């Protein structure tokens, strides 16, 4: 009996140890990535680097791409909430006028002034870097799939009605136009297509941040906040900080601004990351990541259905895949929409296990659910359809998430290629289950 209890005790400890090491290893994975490029901590505001062209697994014999369905986020842009610039600037200006800034604080004030000046009047707009990034990404795509980009190819290009998305679309088109003459492209930015480009669902959005979720998030936030050191380095009078400064807000504003620098041409000359310790940046990122998980991912705190907001997008994607089967010539659907659409779509499609469902916000890192991996600025989901010839019953697809071959939650004998029929069946069933549940729920409520 005693032996058993000792054994139990040991097993318990072994499990704990295993868990801890897994946790530590996984955490260090994220920490490593953040260390390698601190800009990643900007999360969904990370500017996706164009980088080297990823290697493609060769398609099964005889199969060639014939249709690309692309969903892209806007490229690098200035923060659209101008308060991040103006409020932060005002806080520092006031403290400066009262002589409450340390020398370091004064220098930070100067840098915020530069950022504000650079962004003033351009809030929410695509930056020059964003324009270059959009073109470079399109160039890479063309070079990667030469079969698709022939004079016979047809481009159907769509954007949601939002300045930066339309410009991202246009920059991509200009890149295409400079690479290919003649070009057959039809572009459109219309409210008419909102229903499958950026759908709305009032019921789901109303459930997003219910009081229980908020309570848990606030607690998670509090546990990951420690702004004393930062305030101490910026202000010379702690009494002033206590009475006049909302440390948590200011600290967040500075973190957001720090992540914004990479989108501007000030990058390389100015940084705000140096005011934080790596651990502080990591914490800020952790809070932001959890927030995005709650809002766009499969977080079970609020029911775990938020990603289903994009079900019309997924349904349209499947519908289009079927419609294109009988085409003779290659076709590209290039769509540009908001980053949160791409984020939720990736979660809904369970790409690379980002469909994760958990209520434990602390576990996100261990599971590798990191916003900058899923939907950074310039990020994209591309579904590429392959066939041997027109009428081929076994169409294959592969999905690229930010250019890398993604894993789908579906069995296959030729990963990363999946059989279209399996993919279609899996996703349609998934959507059907959700809609069925929601319909029944509505009936019961009545």
């Amino acid at each position: 009996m005693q032996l058993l209890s000792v054994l139990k005790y040991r097993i318990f400890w072994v499990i704990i140890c295993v868990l801890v090491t897994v946790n530590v290893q996984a955490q260090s994975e994220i920490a490593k990535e953040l260390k390698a490029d601190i800009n990643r901590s900007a999360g969904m505001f990370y500017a996706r680097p164009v980088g080297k062209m990823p290697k493609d697994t060769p398609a099964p014999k005889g199969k060639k791409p014939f249709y690309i369905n692309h969903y892209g986020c806007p490229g690098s842009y200035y923060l659209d909430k101008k308060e991040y610039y103006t409020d932060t600037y005002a806080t520092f200006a006031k403290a400066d006028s009262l002589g409450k800034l340390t020398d370091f604080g004064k220098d930070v004030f100067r840098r915020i002034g530069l950022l504000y000046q650079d962004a003033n009047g351009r809030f929410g707009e695509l930056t020059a870097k964003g324009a270059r990034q959009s073109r470079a990404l399109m160039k890479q795509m063309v070079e990667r799939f030469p079969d698709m980009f022939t004079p016979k190819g047809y481009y159907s290009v769509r954007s949601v009605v939002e300045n930066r998305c339309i410009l991202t679309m246009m920059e991509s088109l200009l890149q295409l136009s400079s690479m290919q003459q003649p070009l057959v492209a039809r572009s459109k930015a219309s409210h008419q297509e909102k229903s499958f480009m950026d759908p709305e669902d009032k019921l789901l959005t109303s459930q997003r941040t219910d009081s229980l979720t908020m309570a848990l998030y606030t607690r998670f936030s509090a546990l990951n906040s420690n702004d004393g050191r930062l305030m101490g380095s910026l202000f010379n009078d702690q009494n002033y900080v206590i009475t006049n400064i909302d440390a948590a807000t200011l600290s967040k504003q500075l973190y957001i601004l720090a992540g914004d620098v990479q989108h501007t041409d000030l990058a390389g000359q100015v940084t705000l990351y140096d005011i934080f310790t790596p651990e502080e940046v990591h914490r800020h990122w952790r809070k932001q990541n959890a927030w995005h998980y709650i809002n766009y991912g499969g977080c079970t705190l609020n029911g775990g259905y938020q990603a289903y907001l994009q079900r019309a997008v997924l349904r349209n994607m499947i519908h289009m895949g079927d419609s294109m089967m009988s085409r003779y010539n290659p076709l590209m659907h290039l769509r540009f929409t908001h980053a949160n659409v791409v984020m939720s779509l990736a979660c809904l499609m369970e790409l690379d296990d980002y469909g994760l469902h958990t209520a434990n916000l602390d576990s996100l890192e261990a599971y590798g659910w990191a916003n900058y991996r899923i939907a950074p600025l310039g990020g994209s989901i591309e579904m590429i359809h392959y066939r041997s010839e027109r009428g081929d019953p076994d169409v294959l697809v592969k999905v690229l998430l930010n250019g890398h071959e993604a894993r789908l939650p579906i069995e296959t004998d030729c990963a990363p290629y999946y059989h279209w029929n399996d993919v279609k069946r899996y996703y349609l069933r998934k959507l059907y289950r959700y809609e069925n549940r929601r319909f029944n729920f509505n009936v019961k409520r009545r």
Partner: protein
Amino acid sequence: MKTKIQYLIVILFTFILSLFTSLSLVAQPKVMQIIKETPSYASCNYHIYPDSITTPLTPSPEGKKPFYVSHYGRHGSRYISSRSGYDIPYMMMLHADSLDELTPAGRKVLHEMNLIMHDTEDRWGELTGYGKAQLQSIGRRMAENFPEVFRPGTKVTARSTIVSRCIESMGAATLEMLQVCPQLEISMQASQRNQWYMNHQDRKLRRGYMTPEAQKAYDSYIAHRMGNIRLMEMIFKNPDIVKEVVDEEQFSYYLMKMSLFQLNTNFNQNTHLMGLFHTDDLYLMWQIDNALWYIQHGACKLNGGRQPYSQRYLLRQMIADADSCIQLDQPTAQLRFGHETVLLPLVCLIGVNGYDLETDNLDELEERGWLCSSVFPMGCNLQFIFYRSNPKDQDVLFKVLLNEVEATLPLQPVSGPYYRWADFRQYCLDKLSNYK
């Protein structure tokens, strides 16, 4: 004696009659004729940009080459900017229908209106396929007409207002330029930051355009031009009874607009309503609108003639941009994409083709050639083309193209359509500095 007098009277009468007819022949045909051939001309700012421009351009002045293009253009064909314009006749129609006051013809009209409303839903103010095609052709022709400017490596700066149809227009034009010359270095921007000159709406000026004198002149001008009793009798069973819910003047005016605006779309274009109207109806509507546009944006004496100055910032900016681009050794192009409510006053301010016309008589507009539809159809544009022999050449000449046709300025030309930039610059700066 009596017969002689009778004879004289007859002669006099025929003379007067012939005088009248000849007068009316002189006054009417031009615009009336245009509208007969191109009904869209009657819709003023919804007029469609000509498909192809065939007017030849004068060769470059001797020894000089184009080196800089400065452009302000309007977006291409769009859907009506808000649903309120369509709602006016639509709601009246629905109301009359609910009272069972529609004739069979009226019911057909309502059916077409339903289709139009359905097709336009969620597309208010958006660029149409036609609009894109217009801008593509304009961009292509610009690049083809001035290969000395649009050559590999040339920096093309494109700016647009923050309205999505303008951004798309900018994209359409520049995309086509790349088809002509793939090595152009094009940068695009659609920024709030440039709105102060790209789309300046002067509230103070705007508030004061309808002075009491202007209102009086306008009211008396439109008095006998509004309404269409023929239309009312065709659509409604009892025009007198529906008067309570249908305002004849508003109804016929906005229904005409609804049918004409359809010409700006290519998919789902519905021109069935066009058959309801005679050329005279369209012509009268055009007259009303032309007069209003003149009061709003022309140098109309009835309100002091200051309205064109709403574009003083844009003109200054264009001059400043030219000043700096002339300093460059390499050719450049600056394209700006905006709105007709900017381009019309700009044209009036500069005095292109005599559009700086100052008058207080609205009846004079037509005869003196102040025709708004010729200035600002969808896709309308103003291009300044600059010429010099080499970067050191101080004697910079330029010409103005209004909708891609060479235009005149209120100055002495050097030769043909070419004017001295320095003269024009001084003329504009003097004019602007006199504005208080």
